[in-house]
């Protein structure tokens, strides 16, 4: 253990995993409470064409071009689906499904023109061991921005999540907050690209919140507990991946999945076994 910790690249990777796991874990509470897991799933697919387009426009695969491309594509998909849902008889889920599959397909076609195929795979599945100092700063910036904003706005967000119409009647700008939550969702998912890639990003931003939801009756505990669980899963996954020579992104996701299963079967409140036993 000590010997790997002495490598700067591994230190950076661990720190990156810690920040990403914590931020995504905290935010996953809102994803679960807003019942937006499917939206997040669609987003993870929209990231790919965004990265491809970012590379095409900027001519190189850098963290910034990928981040910006992914963010713009995801925002277009999410805000586009909200706009379609609002101005037609379609619901947001249907609109999202149509728009994100088209976006994903466009991304696949664009791949043909992208010169750096191999490295693009890192964005599909993550490559946290190669996280650079500048990537780390981007991740850190997104993390601070997200945590500060969600903490500062926790009262109106809580009211909005629990009873949107009552919140609106009490003067909470529910629509603005919904757009804000969606924008933050895109940000934290983009920040986890480096760690787990766009396919597995979904796990980080849903699984911790879903797990803690089974264990607690407090929204605050769900938020911070999701953060702690996400961070533990990310760091633990890194270490496990190192010794087992697994892919870090996949190992992190499997660990978080194991935590979820434990909570599902043995949780004190909603445990499956407890419930089955009491019937």
């Amino acid at each position: 253990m000590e010997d790997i910790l002495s490598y700067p690249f591994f230190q950076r990777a661990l720190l990156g995993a810690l920040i990403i796991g914590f931020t995504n874990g905290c935010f996953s509470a809102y994803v679960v409470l807003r019942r937006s897991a499917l939206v997040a799933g669609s987003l993870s697919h929209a990231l790919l064409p965004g990265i491809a387009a970012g590379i095409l426009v900027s001519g190189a695969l850098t963290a910034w071009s990928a981040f910006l491309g992914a963010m713009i594509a995801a925002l277009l998909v999410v805000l586009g689906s909200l706009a379609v849902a609002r101005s037609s008889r379609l619901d947001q889920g249907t609109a999202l499904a149509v728009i994100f599959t088209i976006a994903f397909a466009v991304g696949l076609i664009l791949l043909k023109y992208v010169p750096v195929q191999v490295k693009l795979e890192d964005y599909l599945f993550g490559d946290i061991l190669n996280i650079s100092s500048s990537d780390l700063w981007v991740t850190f910036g997104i993390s601070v921005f997200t945590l500060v904003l969600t903490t500062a706005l926790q009262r109106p967000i809580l009211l909005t999540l629990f009873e949107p119409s009552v919140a609106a009647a009490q003067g909470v700008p529910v629509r603005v907050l919904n757009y804000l939550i969606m924008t933050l969702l895109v940000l934290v998912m983009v920040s986890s690209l480096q760690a787990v890639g766009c396919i597995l990003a979904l796990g980080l931003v849903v699984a911790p919140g879903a797990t803690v939801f089974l264990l607690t009756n407090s929204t605050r505990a769900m938020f911070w507990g999701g953060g702690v669980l996400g961070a533990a899963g990310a760091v633990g996954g890194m270490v496990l991946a190192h010794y087992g020579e697994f892919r870090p992104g996949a190992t992190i996701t499997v660990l978080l999945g194991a935590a979820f299963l434990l909570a599902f079967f043995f949780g004190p409140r909603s445990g499956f076994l407890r419930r089955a036993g009491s019937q």
Partner: protein
Amino acid sequence: MSIQPDSFSADSGSGHCRHCAHHHELQIQGLAVRYQQVLALEGVTLGTSCGNTLALIGPNGAGKSTLLKAIAGLVPRSAGSILWRGARVSQWHREFAYLPQREDVDWSFPVTVRGLVEMGRYSQLGWWRRWRPLDDEKVTEALKRMHLEDLEHRQISELSGGQQQRTFIARALSQEAHVLLLDEPFNGLDRPARENLSSLLRQLAEQGRLVIASHHDLATVPALFDEVLILNRAPVAFGSVAEVFTPALLARAFGESEPELEEKVPAVVSTAANVSREKENALVPAGL
């Protein structure tokens, strides 16, 4: 959150409104509400004031819930005005508490009884003001008044129907709301819980709050309420229970013949004496 005129505490002293200087009025003038193209409510005009309990009755789809939501500001008006203390209700949203129908609440939400009642303080505190010891006191006081102290750490789905209603009323109290808008509060409650809730609502009115509830059990209207609005998309009649709660007017709203209604509503032998006797019976505290 918008800055509001200073509101007085609804808890300051008991029995005001009827006995004190201020007498806040709710004035609804020519109110209409449309959902898309469908007219849900039209021509609603009424005036009432704090200290009253007002029942909204009428057949299914008569617009009872819609009227409550319009007063609470949950659905937009397409015509008319709703004034509280002489100003638009949107300026007073802190003084209004809307209690949704049971099936409209997400009971799985991770919040405890105390956590829900704490939410009531948010409209007093705004978004950023620090939580003070005073806020804890208000929450504790509201929990006590609704007899929920022992349940404060329960998650809201782990309560009986009556306890759930009382939790939402406790939130309205911690909000220091002056007008309580309840959508079918007695739905799904067993008899003791119904009696408990009805005496609570009456106490709230006596302490100067205005209680407005949609209600479908005609038999209990005279016992529970002072005023009635009989509604069938448009108002059929509005006034005190003694004046308005008559077989003839009910038949107009419900489209049934008078004898049939009398069977459903034994209380509609409406002499004023009868009504007041029923009310006294309802006032006996039902095992709080």
